[in-house]
């Protein structure tokens, strides 16, 4: 299988302002959010980045989505380098994270069309895709309701639909089911599985074991910004539950017993 995402030796650290230091109750000025991180994702699979809070999952995905630049190392998505060809990378991926918000003033319909036109999609194709996506996520009844008046779940589904306006080959989701009720979460995970069936590559980050066990083909366990284990879901589990394996790997890496 073809490696469609290749991450090699990625590093990212943040310098904290004095205010941030106080907030984080830390005396260290520099946080190494991601350290020498490498992994690959094959075309047509769902890859899960699993890790505890602050492990560096979101930071990694933001680097892959070209929102922030790595300090060193490189990442290539569908042949495009995140550092030297960010604009090409952006055409290849759909990225969804809670920090990306939609303008509350507009309606789902308006925003969908707006982002489609930014991607240069012709109106006919756009409308056809919009019909499918709005249908799938039950947005139709809310298509002309301002984002401000939508529920959290509906907002997230609209964000999801809009992140797919350009029918990207690679989909990167940060915590795809965060804040969603079980029904909405199921709609989303089912859709991810359907996307895989279409041959799309999906990279998700999460700290929810059940989500990984349900949808992921391969998983990378990320702890303190480094890859602690990476492989096929079954290989990582080694006959145990993912949770048990995770705690084992966690205590080995951190040198503590959980």
């Amino acid at each position, binding site marked *: 299988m073809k490696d469609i995402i290749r991450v090699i030796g990625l590093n990212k650290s943040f310098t904290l302002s004095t205010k941030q230091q106080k907030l984080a109750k830390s005396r260290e000025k520099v946080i190494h959010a991601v350290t020498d991180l490498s992994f690959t994702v094959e075309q047509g699979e769902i890859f899960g980045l699993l890790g505890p809070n602050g492990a560096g999952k979101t930071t990694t995905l933001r680097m892959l989505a070209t929102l922030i630049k790595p300090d060193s190392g490189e990442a290539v998505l569908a042949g495009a380098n995140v550092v030297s060809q960010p604009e090409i990378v952006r055409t290849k991926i759909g*990225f969804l994270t809670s920090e*990306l918000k939609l303008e509350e*003033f*507009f309606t789902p319909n308006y925003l969908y069309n707006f982002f489609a036109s*930014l991607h240069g999609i012709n109106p006919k194709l756009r409308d056809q895709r919009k019909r499918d996506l709005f249908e799938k996520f039950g947005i139709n009844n809310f298509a002309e309701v301002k984002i401000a008046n939508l529920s959290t779940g509906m907002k997230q589904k609209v964000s999801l639909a809009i992140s797919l306006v350009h029918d990207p080959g690679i989909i990167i989701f940060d915590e795809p089911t965060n804040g969603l009720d079980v029904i909405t979460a199921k709609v989303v995970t089912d859709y991810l599985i359907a996307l895989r069936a279409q041959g799309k590559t999906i990279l998700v980050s999460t700290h929810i074991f059940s989500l990984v066990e349900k949808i992921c083909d391969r998983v990378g366990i990320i702890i303190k910004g480094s890859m602690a284990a990476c492989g096929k879901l079954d290989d990582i589990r080694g006959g145990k539950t993912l949770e048990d394996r995770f705690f084992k790997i966690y205590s080995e890496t951190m040198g503590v017993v959980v």
Partner: protein
Amino acid sequence: MKNIVMIIIKKELARFFGDKRLMLTAVLLPGMMIYLIYSFMGSTLSGLFKSDSDYRYTISTVNLPKSISTLTGDMAADFTAIDVGKIADAKIAIAEKKLDLLAVFPENFDVQVAAHNPASGETAPHVALYYNTTRTESSKAYNLLTTLLNTYESSLANKFDVNAGEDPFNLATKKDASGLLFSSMLPMLLMIFLFSGCMAVALEAIAGEKERGTIATMLITPVKRSELVMGKIIALAIVALISGSSSILGTLLSLPRFMSATKGMPTAFYGFVDYAMLAAVVLSTVLLFISMISIVSAYAKTVKEAQTSVMPLMIVVMLVGVTGMFSGTAQTETLYYFIPVYNSVQSMVGILSFNATATYISITVLVNLLLSVACGFVLTWMFNNEKIMFNK
């Protein structure tokens, strides 16, 4: 590429024109406020200088002589002759504001005046005028009659005249006079209104979007940062211009009323070229303001922070605007037209006082445009900088 910029402009404008509250506060309100304030100031001023034009003063007279009564024909007043015995009643009427003035002349005033020799040292014939300062009409009637009597007195011993006859002695043309009035006030007003207009839209559209996380959604699309910046700046400039025009319209509509108080000067002396030059200066100034405020608001984390950081800039613009009020005529040193903001004020003063030259205006417009472009580059760099776009 042009297409993308257009799409962004369209969205920004849709955002603005679809928002009734924003339209009200940024477009309707400034113009209306200014119109009301200036009209109010104008009518208050004119109220100080003239009372109701149809009003006729009521004046009671005792022994009004022939010589004076022939002179009072021009006065908008009704004269009533009363007896000496009614003087007390008339005084009460004045105190009660039912009568404006009581003029008491001595008997045989004309004969006494003719007989009086100032050199003799005898007391001169005396005229008593009773009035009430708490009533405006009474004071005015008093002033009018005093002036009339003084004029009569000096005409008795006419040695020479000053400015007699119909010749126009004041040689200021109407053009100069209205130019002076406009050039002293408008540049300052324009600068303040334009800047406030720019502030109202740019803070919200850049710092606001950053604060709400909606700009990040734009940043993951393949749109170039420079296109995003261009689209934003152009859209914001359009809105700011509309907001500014509302203020300017309010000013222009109220100025005739404002000026009628200070002598009713027509304003239609500015020609097409004047308006065209003014438009070019205003347009380039708005573009510069928008770019500068955008940089400040791109740096801020929240709209509130942006508002605070833009204050020093606003104060500078206001102060520079005020210098235009006192400079009278525009600077004639070319170097001044290279100083941003100041050059805009000086150009406006120049245009409005009919002293503008194409060179100065071109330099001003060019400097403003170049600076806006430079700001555009800075903004693009900022949009590319994660430390600025995602500073929390």
